[in-house]
């Protein structure tokens, strides 16, 4: 066969590239374990071949609030059942966007959708975990849990009316704490965030006379720099001295950041902890929230309650295209509800109690169907 000059010239680089790609794909195949060649590419698209129940990858995206827990659950679940969870922390706004566009199997959001929005997009919603939002500060010489702040002060800081750390109002509450005279550098979220949703609902509820910037996933912040995701806010507060930010508790605890005490609705000073989140979550009337399961848990009554508590939700398409994939996904959530309590405790999240899980299983999951047939059980 005539060896063309062209192939001779192109051979070295093309061969190198082909070899690299081939090696990469082969390595991927070998390292990936069970191959999944038969599964359809598109959650909303046609199924090519039936898929074994627990093999494969479940793709989820959304809130960074529960991200450490979901990723830990995914890692633990892989050890147990083999199915893999790929969870991308892109913010609640991103999760809602992705599940509406059907580019993911499930979306996660701490800002629950109202029933009208759910119906308009063909989605169902159910709570997966409860956690607390805490204020973290970067101040030299201030210990974890030492600084005390009232809702009015937090609102003032985020409105830009309280500008220095040694402001008389802060100093009065914190005698004996070394407060510098420097400016308070404010950090908030730059992306559409369920954590922001929870935090701003708290400010509106507890300090409504001072906080006038609204309550939503994204607001027009009066002051401050933006960080991307809970991760970004935590990282920013770590890097900027004299700064304050709001993050989900796991981000503060796992990184050893300094948190502040808050005065709750009952006037008690509380530090963030599983017990205080639990106390807030205990007040929730989940049955009454059906069918959307929309729930706001901020500023609950009780001596021990943490005032900035919130639930994080999963959003799933009602009409699924592939029964195998949908079942695999619900299997994973079932495991999280039933067996995920230890993982949640390790990261200081409050798992959803068993009776609420029953509600979800009996009232919400039956509406998830493939061509009319319910996927669960």
């Amino acid at each position, binding site marked *: 066969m005539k060896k063309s000059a062209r192939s001779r010239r192109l051979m070295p680089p093309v061969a190198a590239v082909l070899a690299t790609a081939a090696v990469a794909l082969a390595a991927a195949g070998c390292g990936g374990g069970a191959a999944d060649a038969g599964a359809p590419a598109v959650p909303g698209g046609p199924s090519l071949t039936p898929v074994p129940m627990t093999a494969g990858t479940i793709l989820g995206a959304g809130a960074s609030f529960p991200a450490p827990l979901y990723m830990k659950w995914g890692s633990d679940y892989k050890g147990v059942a083999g199915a893999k969870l790929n969870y*991308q922390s892109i913010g609640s706004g991103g999760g809602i966007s992705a599940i509406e566009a059907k580019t993911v199997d499930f979306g996660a959001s701490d800002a629950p959708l109202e029933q009208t929005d759910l119906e308009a997009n063909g989605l169902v919603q159910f709570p997966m975990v409860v956690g607390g939002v805490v204020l973290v500060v970067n101040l030299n010489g201030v210990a974890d849990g030492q600084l005390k702040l009232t809702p009015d002060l937090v609102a003032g800081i985020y409105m830009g009316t309280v500008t220095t750390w040694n402001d008389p109002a802060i100093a009065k509450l914190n005698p004996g704490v070394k407060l510098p005279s420097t400016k308070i550098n404010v950090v908030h979220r730059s992306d559409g965030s369920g954590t922001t949703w929870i935090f701003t609902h708290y400010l509106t509820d507890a300090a409504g006379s001072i906080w006038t910037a609204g309550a939503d996933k994204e607001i027009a912040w009066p002051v401050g720099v933006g960080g991307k995701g809970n991760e970004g806010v935590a990282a920013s507060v770590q890097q900027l001295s004299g700064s304050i930010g709001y993050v989900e508790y796991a981000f503060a605890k796992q990184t050893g950041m300094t948190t502040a005490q808050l005065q709750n609705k009952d006037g008690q000073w509380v530090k963030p902890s599983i017990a205080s989140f639990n106390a807030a979550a205990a007040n929730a009337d989940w049955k009454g929230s059906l069918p959307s399961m929309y729930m706001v848990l901020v500023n609950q009554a009780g001596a021990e309650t943490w005032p900035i508590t919130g639930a994080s939700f999963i959003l799933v398409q009602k009409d699924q295209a592939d029964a195998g994939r949908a079942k695999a996904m619900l299997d994973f959530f079932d495991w999280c509800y039933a067996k995920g309590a230890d993982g949640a405790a390790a990261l200081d999240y409050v798992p959803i109690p068993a009776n609420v899980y029953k509600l979800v299983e009996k009232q919400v999951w039956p509406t998830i169907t493939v061509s009319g047939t319910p996927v669960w059980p």
Partner: protein
Amino acid sequence: MSAVAKVRTAPARRRSIARRKATDLVIKVLSWIGATCGIAVMAFIVGEVVVRGAGALNVAFFTQPTPQDVTSNAGGFANAIVGTLAITGVAALIAIPMGFLGGVYLAEFGRNGRIATAVRMIANVVMGVPSIIVGVFAFAIIVKPLQHYSGFAGSVALAFIMLPLIARTTEDILNLVPNEIRESGLAMGAPRWKVTLGVICKAARGGLITGATLAIVRVAGETAPLLFTALSSPYWMTGLFGPGGFFGGPVANLTKTIYDFSGSPYPHWQELAWGGALVIIIAVLGMNILVRLLFQRGKEW
């Protein structure tokens, strides 16, 4: 100036010379300081990555996939490295043949014609398009219609960036080949395509490989085009299709993972990010040095 100087008295001339010499000295000193500062900062940047990343490069780094559990210290970057190799490799497969032939067109056929000049200018313009825009473009034409992220979409975005690079470097290299070689090939009666591919390209092989390699290495370091196309994943690719496969779902890659981990507050993840950054620097600088050493005649740009 010399005419004026002749009119001046000797002391005035000496003062003027002294002033000019003083200015010269001051500027020289400032220049040395400025240049040293500038170069020092750049060396510092590389040094910082080396120092912070060296500690992260162990066996686990190169064998374990990226961690998901923030409570553990396990994990590595292996799947991200493989993912980048795959995505960049496929991008090269798409872009190199097309870019090479495009460069051949510009050098051999179009030359100074109107169409070729326009294509050349367009290629230069495309080279300047911000890579985030290319990412948005790839999202709009591949991810959105197919309704899933994929490593392939990332490859398409990277190929888009590589295409004009390779075309222009090919053209530049081919233009360096003396016309005599072209003429002697054609005079022997060989058809145009044989002369171009067999003779000229063989003469310019060093430069062409250099250009292609440098283009590959350059896009391997891009992050923005992969943000909305390949996304990321904590697992190995499971074949080609399906939600874990190259064409079917998100694929782990070096740059996006570094972006995610360096924006996180966990020290272990940050350390892994520095390790990944060091790997990139070694690859980029290493390939640069390699192609220069091997193909010294190659054009550098």
